[in-house]
């Protein structure tokens, strides 16, 4: 970046001022973020529990014991499976809805584009707990609006939150509704960055709308799509408030997410060593996803 002045040319006075200006922010990040993260790793190698909270000397080093226990814990596998299902269904669905919406909003035939962009974005800023309460009412099997509307088309009553097979899908739908606007705004900006001349050239060659989408829009939008995809994926990995409010992880643990399991183990049963191991497993999953993105990017850059 050329706008950044070289760091070595400053006076000692300037450097001193810089460290004073950085001190509050860096101090807070070290004390209340970096330190806890490192301590979390240590915690995950211990059997820290309720007794250790009363007196830390009660905690013992157990090595990889917590991780080994996780591998044998059916509840953990259930939560892991649920979270992967969330990511695998919710991620692509969010992106697909956002892409469709972005293409419509960006269409030259569309009117009131600014208004639509605002409307689609509005759910993103709403309070998750509040909209989860609203959606729980909408999902009510008898009186809920969703079954009423589906009933008009002859769809039989669905027990959205009460049936293990539907409950996860119900949570995915709420999450898609709440987060697609974020991706949409990013994708619209990405679409607007594509030079109009490329489309003119394609049209001169007689390319259809579909051809333009496939050979101009999507390839050029790919970095934006990858970015939106990773942000969405990371969000689904950390899903917590929706199951906490709507189902408490039920029915039959069908909506138990990794973050909810960590919360229950750590802050309800105070099995903090066990919960720390869950948290670091979540971290590893997110890290792997980010690495996958960087890998995809690099391969693209080489082409």
């Amino acid at each position, binding site marked *: 970046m050329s706008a950044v002045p070289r760091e070595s040319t400053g006076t000692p006075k300037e450097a001193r001022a810089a460290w004073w200006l950085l001190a509050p922010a860096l101090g807070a990040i070290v004390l209340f973020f970096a330190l806890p993260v490192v301590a979390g790793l240590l915690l995950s190698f211990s059997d820290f529990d309720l007794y250790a909270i009363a007196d830390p000397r009660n905690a013992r080093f157990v090595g990889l014991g917590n991780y080994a226990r996780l591998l044998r814990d059916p509840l953990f596998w259930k939560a892991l499976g649920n979270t992967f299902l969330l990511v695998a269904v919710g991620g692509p669905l969010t992106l697909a809805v956002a892409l469709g919406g972005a293409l419509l909003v960006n269409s030259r035939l569309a009117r009131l584009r600014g208004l639509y962009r605002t409307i689609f974005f509005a759910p993103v800023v709403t309070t998750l707990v*509040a909209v989860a309460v609203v959606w729980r009412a909408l999902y009510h099997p008898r009186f809920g609006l969703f079954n009423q509307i589906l009933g008009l088309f002859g769809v039989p009553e669905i027990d959205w939150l009460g049936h293990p097979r539907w409950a996860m899908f119900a949570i995915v739908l709420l999450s898609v509704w709440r987060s697609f606007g974020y991706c949409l705004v990013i994708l619209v900006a990405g679409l607007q960055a594509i030079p109009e001349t490329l489309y003119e050239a394609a049209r001169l060659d007689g390319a259809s709308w579909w051809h333009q989408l496939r050979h101009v829009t999507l390839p050029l939008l790919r970095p934006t799509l990858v970015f939106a995809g990773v942000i969405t994926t990371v969000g689904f990995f950390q899903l*917590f408030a929706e199951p906490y409010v709507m189902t408490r992880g039920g029915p039959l643990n069908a909506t138990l997410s990794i973050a909810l399991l960590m919360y229950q183990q750590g802050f309800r049963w105070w099995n903090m060593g066990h919960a720390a191991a869950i948290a670091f497993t979540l971290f590893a999953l997110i890290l792997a996803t980010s690495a996958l993105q960087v890998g995809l990017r690099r391969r693209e850059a080489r082409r």
Partner: protein
Amino acid sequence: MKRRLLSIAVNAALLLAALLTLLPLAWMVSASFMPAGEANQLPPRYLPSAPTLVHYQTLFARLNLGRAFRNSLILATAITAVSVLCNSMAGYAFAKLRFRGRDRLFALLLLTLVVPPQVGMLPLFLELRALGLVNSFGGVLVAAIATVFGIFLVRQFALAIPDELLDAARIDGASEWRIYWTVVLPLLRPILVTLAVFTFLGSWNDFMWPLIVLTDERLQTLPVALANLSGEHVQDTELMMAGAVVTVLPVLVLFLAAQRQYLEGILMGGLKE
């Protein structure tokens, strides 16, 4: 002719999608004004037969939601003030001041973005417990003093400040702090507004950390109080919708008032590579 049809199709699709998006929020508002029981009856009602404010009165008079509202307001305001100040200082230093190790430190900071907040939550809770900050607003505040995203946002914006301006102030004998306060801060105003809106919305909507730290009922924020209420009043749909309106309305209004700045922040954050 074909273009006319296509135009109608595009705009109809947009209208339908917008209505579907707004449907949950519209129903929330409508049901919050319905007399008790009307949201759960067949055939369904979409609008209240006789609009009433009784649920809002119940929430504030009997269920202490006003207290939770005040808690949320105090916390979000304090967090916004403190974190905008700290992030702007750090962001400016990273962008414009020259010191050894700066770029490596900034790269290290960006690297921490991949760490999900849940990873530090357990030890942070123990740390705050030792400091006596559990069950106090301080416990929520300290975790939000500075954010890497905020520092990044300010830095990107501050890069455009001309060095000549800062050097001229230095030649005039102004101290570095004075330069930051009187020259830099006014120039950073647009991005600070963006950051303030972001931070306020984020802390108003935050759920997991306040749920963990604030167990005392009198300190609970609006989302935590609403989640508790929703467990006790599953059947009182109209009451819960009023609670949801009270929680969501302030952030929606703030977003509509400052949406240009907010969306700019989203796009700056999205272009971070």
